[in-house]
């Protein structure tokens, strides 16, 4: 296990380094922030001073080395716009995005697993066919459109749920969370559901396929031959086996959910990282973009590692050892 972790950390370091280079060059290629940041009335001298202050006069490779050196000390640069450390800006907004993504994942499991299980156990019933047909909608409807529809129906027409913002929050360990207040939960409901839509369909399909496949296995028949009750066969023998692929996919999807929350956060004006990055791209706030992308890379790496560990807990056949 230790060897496994060490090796994974080394790999992760390599990936981060390569990604930082790609991100830096990529962001550089998008456009020149000078045009946006410096007022057109500024004269040549003021202009040069500003460019120098931002470090934009150096050649690209030097800018990268400066960035790298500072990054190693935990400094990902200062936002051109807010004049605050980029990392701090993003971390301030991270809890909002995290709780939204976690809420969506939870909703996907709570809704998707039972529906998928039912559809897998009774594949030919009309209800199952209905579930499967609906899940296709979940895959194919565009997120932003569904988000707008949700707002139209539940906020505008029915007035049941608020359409923007995080609502009331509670501070824990210096960060603010919405899910602990009634008002916060009400604000979270629609964006979380919107973000969960694709995942719900995914979980339904994975669960159904897993159940149908597992039901045919000899060990399920053997469990029945032992005289176990149908509920024990379903919830212990079948369910535990299908959890493995479902957890893997949902876990790996988590990074994607965070990245995808850009759309949902914009539609519902949810003040998370996704909204910040969209605003930053609009004004070409390079340090924030770079910091955001680096954090996403780190998140993906961490999630992959966690999924591997969870996987080994669920599936005894997987050993996390240093063996090749």
């Amino acid at each position, binding site marked *: 296990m230790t060897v496994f972790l060490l090796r994974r950390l080394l790999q992760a370091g390599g990936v981060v380094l390569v990604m930082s280079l790609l991100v830096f060059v990529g962001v550089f290629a998008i456009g020149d922030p000078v045009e946006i940041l410096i007022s057109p009335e500024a004269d040549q001298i003021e202009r040069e001073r500003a460019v120098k202050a931002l470090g934009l006069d150096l050649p690209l490779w030097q800018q990268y080395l400066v960035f790298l050196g500072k990054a190693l000390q935990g400094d990902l640069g200062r936002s051109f716009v807010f004049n605050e450390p980029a990392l701090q800006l993003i971390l301030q907004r991270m809890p909002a995005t995290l709780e939204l993504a976690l809420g969506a994942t939870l909703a996907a499991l709570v809704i998707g697993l039972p529906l998928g299980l039912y559809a897998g156990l009774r594949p030919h019933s009309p209800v199952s066919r209905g579930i499967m047909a609906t899940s296709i909608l979940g895959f194919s409807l565009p997120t932003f459109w569904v988000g707008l529809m949700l707002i139209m129906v539940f906020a505008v027409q029915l007035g049941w749920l608020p359409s923007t913002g995080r609502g009331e929050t509670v501070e824990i360990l210096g960060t603010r969370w919405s899910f602990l207040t009634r008002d916060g939960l009400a604000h979270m409901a629609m964006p979380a559901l919107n973000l969960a839509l694709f995942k719900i369909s995914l979980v339904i399909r994975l669960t159904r396929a897993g159940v149908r496949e597992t039901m045919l296995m000899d*060990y399920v*028949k*053997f469990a029945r*031959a*032992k*005289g*176990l009750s149908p509920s024990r066969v379903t919830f*212990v023998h079948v369910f535990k086996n299908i959890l493995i692929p479902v957890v893997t996919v949902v876990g790996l999807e988590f990074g994607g959910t965070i990245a995808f929350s850009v759309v949902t956060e914009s539609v519902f004006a949810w003040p998370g990282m996704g909204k910040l990055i969209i605003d930053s791209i609009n004004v070409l706030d390079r340090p924030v973009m770079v910091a955001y992308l680096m954090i996403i890379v780190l998140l993906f790496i961490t999630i992959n590692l966690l999924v591997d560990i969870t996987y080994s807990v669920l*599936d*005894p056949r997987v050993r996390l050892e240093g063996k090749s």
Partner: protein
Amino acid sequence: MSLPAVAAPGGPTLEVRNLRTHFFTRAGVVKAVDDVSFTVERGKVMGLVGESGSGKTVTGFSIIGLVDPPGRITGGQVLFQGTDLASLSEAEMRNLRGNRIAMIFQDPMMTLNPVLRIDTQMIETVQAHARVSREEARQRARDALGQVGIPSPDERLRAYPHQFSGGMRQRVAIAIALLHKPELIIADEPTTALDVTIQGQILAEAQKLCAQFGTALIWITHDLSVVAGLADDIAVMYAGKVVESGEVGAVLDAPLHPYTAGLIGSVPSRNRRGAPLSQIPGMTPSLLNLPAGCAFRARCPRAESRCAEPPPFAEYLPGRHARCIHPYIEEAVRA
């Protein structure tokens, strides 16, 4: 829950009468089991033999009521200690399964759930049929593992199936079958996947069990030498039907049915060393839409025009049935 005590004390443990199990597939009706009859007495071993696809496993599943769609039992009776199992509710059947009738599956690599520990899979079986504490159940599980010769059972209980070899897994499956000292065990080729020494140990174990507890045993195999050493009676299946049955020594010495004779001729044996092995010519027929008449007739050396009619399953000699209109009677009488 106990069965109504209709069974006469001396009656057979299991009587299968004209059992039919068909699979209604898109391609047509597969008559996997089509008129199977045999009897298993208390404490006796019945060898059920036949080549691959002859319907042995489906027969076993039909007895414990685990035929899944598109399959269905379409006829006949399964009498367990005199009770027709078709008359029992699903809950009553569940009470029999794993408790009074146990089955050991063909492939030990696939029988145990890969994500559950051995103790979980054994304790749940104990607790499905006996109101005992977890501790007591674990105790019984450990004893059963010891009984089938698994060393350090305490430690092995905490292991997962993938940590066992195929032979050890089959022993675990056998231990699970033994947990409630069932009256009937259906063992579906339990030793095919094992090497010869372990096979011998398990066969000896099985015989001991029958003698000790009066357990009736159906031993499914296509290995005639196993049947010769272990079984009291034999039933030979071909294309979903029992084509010959009787006491094992008599049948193997002088078979009535040409198919049985062919099977025996294709087994290597010590006293015929050097002699060429004979083979049954031709192929096993597809069970899909079998024509009427004897299913063996395309491969039979004694086939004649009358064989196009379905031959009856008749008792040609005392205790010896065959499904053939032209059996080797004289040879059997002379033997």
